[in-house]
């Protein structure tokens, strides 16, 4: 596995896509833009040299239609779900056959789409997380969606906190689909046994105070810990700092107020190295499932799998607050983009597919099966969604927290920024380094990230 990652990274570096792009984290942020001179907002949505990539065998009942191709960044269960949705689309009408091929994960899609642009054999629809589509926009690979919007299908039907991330200038390049937020998971059985508060919103300090009580439980002969950090918490760190009342960057200004950052970093460091009730885990969710730790955070998209994996009662709560309660949470997950190809006919057909997947029925259907949030506002009133929420309140918690979702600070739109943040917290929770030098080092790195991407960011209206 390790070898593969390295190789992919080399490939990407070679393809000129930016060295950090190989990050496998599903909730990662965009890599450096391909250069603002590429002129993404080209006048035509077509590119005559861009042919369609290979289609698999077309089932006989769908022959003779307009064939469109989607490269899906999912595997396993999530791929099965989306593939079923495509079958529903193909059966719902007689003009379009939508083919779906899994290319692996987001990083693999990044690699393969970059390569496909070189080969001029591309899919009709792609799906990038958060703001990773920006570099393809700057490379002129994506077509605006606005001409396809109608009264029934437009940005107003989606959750507004996820819409802004898909826009550049006055045009829309992404419609939300598999979107998520971080959420706090706890072992409700253990909390109830100990008489600790459940079904509430915690603060970080409160959780820290629960440490000794939780440590009275043992698992495999060790005292149970309260909370597991990991070495890759960059996405969650936005919510942490929002809870402590700070911001990582404001425009091009890095850490405008160091006070909250100092509080947050000191808190994480002391919780691990003074109290010993939190720790840095190799695989937090695995430790959570085996009972070594009573609480973790994760994506809302993990809820379906976690619910089935644990043999205790799973509790879900808003991300813990502190100064601000409840805090803002970062948006995560991905949405659909239309690729500039040689065929208007295929683009029109692809827009039809997006419309279909943007109906309240399909959005609700997908939410129930995948665990991603229902991105279409009206999907919450779907009977299937209501039923799920009546039986499993954890899903309701996830939806209620959506009101607090917000796009992360611009420095964290770039993989290098996220990695700098992850490195800082990894050395705080792992090695117990001093707080102030960590802040100083992080400041330099985030400033570099912003400076390296100043042109692209200014083009997007960041100031």
């Amino acid at each position, binding site marked *: 596995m390790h070898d*593969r990652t390295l*190789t*992919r990274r*080399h*490939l990407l570096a*070679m*393809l000129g896509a930016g060295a950090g792009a190989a990050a496998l984290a*599903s*909730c990662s942020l965009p890599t450096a833009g391909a250069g603002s001179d590429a002129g993404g907002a080209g006048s035509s949505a077509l590119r005559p040299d861009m042919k369609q*990539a*290979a*289609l*698999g*065998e077309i089932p006989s009942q769908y022959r003779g239609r307009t064939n469109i191709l989607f*490269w899906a*960044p*999912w*595997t*396993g*269960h*999530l*791929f*099965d779900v989306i593939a079923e949705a495509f079958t529903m689309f193909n059966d719902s009408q007689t003009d379009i056959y939508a083919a779906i*091929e*899994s*290319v*692996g*994960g*987001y990083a*693999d899609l990044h*690699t*393969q789409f970059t*390569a*496909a642009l*070189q*080969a*001029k*054999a591309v*899919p009709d629809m792609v799906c990038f997380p958060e703001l990773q589509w920006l570099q393809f926009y700057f490379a002129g690979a994506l077509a605006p969606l606005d001409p396809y919007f109608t009264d029934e299908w437009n940005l107003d039907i989606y959750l507004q906190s996820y819409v802004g991330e898909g826009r550049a200038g006055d045009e829309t390049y992404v419609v939300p689909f*598999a979107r*998520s937020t971080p959420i706090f998971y706890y072992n409700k059985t253990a909390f109830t046994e100990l008489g600790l508060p459940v079904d509430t919103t915690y603060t970080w300090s409160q959780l820290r105070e629960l440490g000794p009580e939780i440590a009275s439980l043992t698992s*495999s002969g060790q005292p149970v810990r309260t909370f597991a950090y990991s070495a890759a918490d960059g996405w969650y760190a936005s919510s942490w700092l929002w809870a402590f009342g700070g911001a990582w960057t404001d425009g091009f200004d890095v850490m405008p107020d160091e006070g909250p950052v100092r509080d947050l970093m000191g808190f994480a460091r002391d919780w691990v190295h003074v109290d010993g009730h939190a720790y840095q885990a190799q695989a937090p*969710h*695995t430790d959570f*499932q*085996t009972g*070594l730790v009573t609480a973790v955070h994760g*994506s809302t*998209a*993990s809820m*379906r*799998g*976690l619910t*089935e*994996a644990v*043999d205790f009662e799973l509790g879900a709560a808003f991300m813990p607050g502190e100064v601000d309660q409840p805090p803002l949470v970062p948006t995560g*997950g991905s949405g659909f983009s239309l690729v500039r190809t040689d065929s208007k006919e295929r683009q029109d057909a692809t827009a039809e597919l997006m419309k279909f997947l943007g109906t309240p029925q399909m959005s609700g259907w997908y939410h129930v099966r*995948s*665990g991603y949030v229902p991105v279409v506002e009206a999907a919450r009133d779907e009977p299937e969604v209501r039923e799920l929420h009546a039986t499993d309140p954890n899903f309701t918690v996830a939806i209620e927290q959506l009101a607090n979702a917000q796009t992360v600070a611009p420095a964290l739109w770039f993989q290098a920024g996220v990695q700098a943040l992850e490195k800082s917290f990894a050395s705080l929770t792992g090695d117990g380094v001093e707080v102030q030098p960590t802040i100083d080092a992080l400041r330099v790195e985030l400033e570099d990230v912003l400076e390296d991407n100043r042109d692209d960011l200014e083009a997007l209206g960041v100031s």
Partner: protein
Amino acid sequence: MTLLPTRPVATPERTASTQSAESAGSAQSAESTQSAQSARSAQSQPSPRERGSRGRRRPRSLTIGLYAMLGLVLAVFAVPLYWLFSSALKPENEIYTFPLTWVPSSLEWGNFVEAWTSAPFGAFLRNSVITTVVGTALEIGVAVLSAYAVAFVRFRGKMLVFAVMVGSLMLPGHITLLVNYITVSSLGWLNTYQGLILPGIGSAFAMFLLYQQMRQVPGELVDAASIDGAGHLRRMVSVVGPICSPMILTATLIVGIGKWNDFVWPLIVTSTADMRTLPIGLMFLRSQEGYDSWGPVMAGTVIVAAPMLVVFFLAQRRIVGGIVSGALKG
């Protein structure tokens, strides 16, 4: 290498050491000269039983130490494999437990069924077999021909050709990846078998390996064949080939395993599920966001790893045997 000579010696010693297990006291007194001596004497003796009863054997402490090291080395190789194979058969919850569950409480063959059905593994297997067999055959064919040419055929600029070929060994594969990709795509070979196979058949590594072996072939043998009227092809097939067969087999194995496990090239050159190979299929078993069920992932890994393990175990005897027989030239 260092462990090999101890094997014939150590086996009978175990019976001896268990017979008198009480007197294991003086552990630290072993000297290397002494052990070498006892090893030599042990080898010269006819019957293991006799050896065990006579006194001049390796000190027990050293034997125990050697066994401990042997066990440790074995464990380093065997434990991950055992864990992989046993986990593929464990019920879901026993995979994660800490401390580890070594023996599954029940055999979960369903993991294999789930792995096989949740992705088109039949197609992956077919594609892997085709690309590995055809690709390996072509690559070894090219390597044998070019190694023979460099070793035995005289032509102008040979050293330059050879230097360029060997020099390409120094080039990391990533450098040629993009060029190959663009070439293959402009030939219209994306997502085809020829696109999967052909870019990989020119391998300086196998050529160099075989060239080194062919240099050891006695010149008199080749000359004798040519005096008998054998042309280059005949000399290669009937004289040089058989003498070098152990190395050819070794190269075939190395090349074959490399092709079987190849990930990056098949990943970017194929784009539909019916053209993917097994290592990519393995990736399809893992979910991205959400939760992995590791049983089927482990079962899929076994499906991918097992054929190469079998091939290797079948072939390794021939490799060792072949090397020995090749060494007895005269």
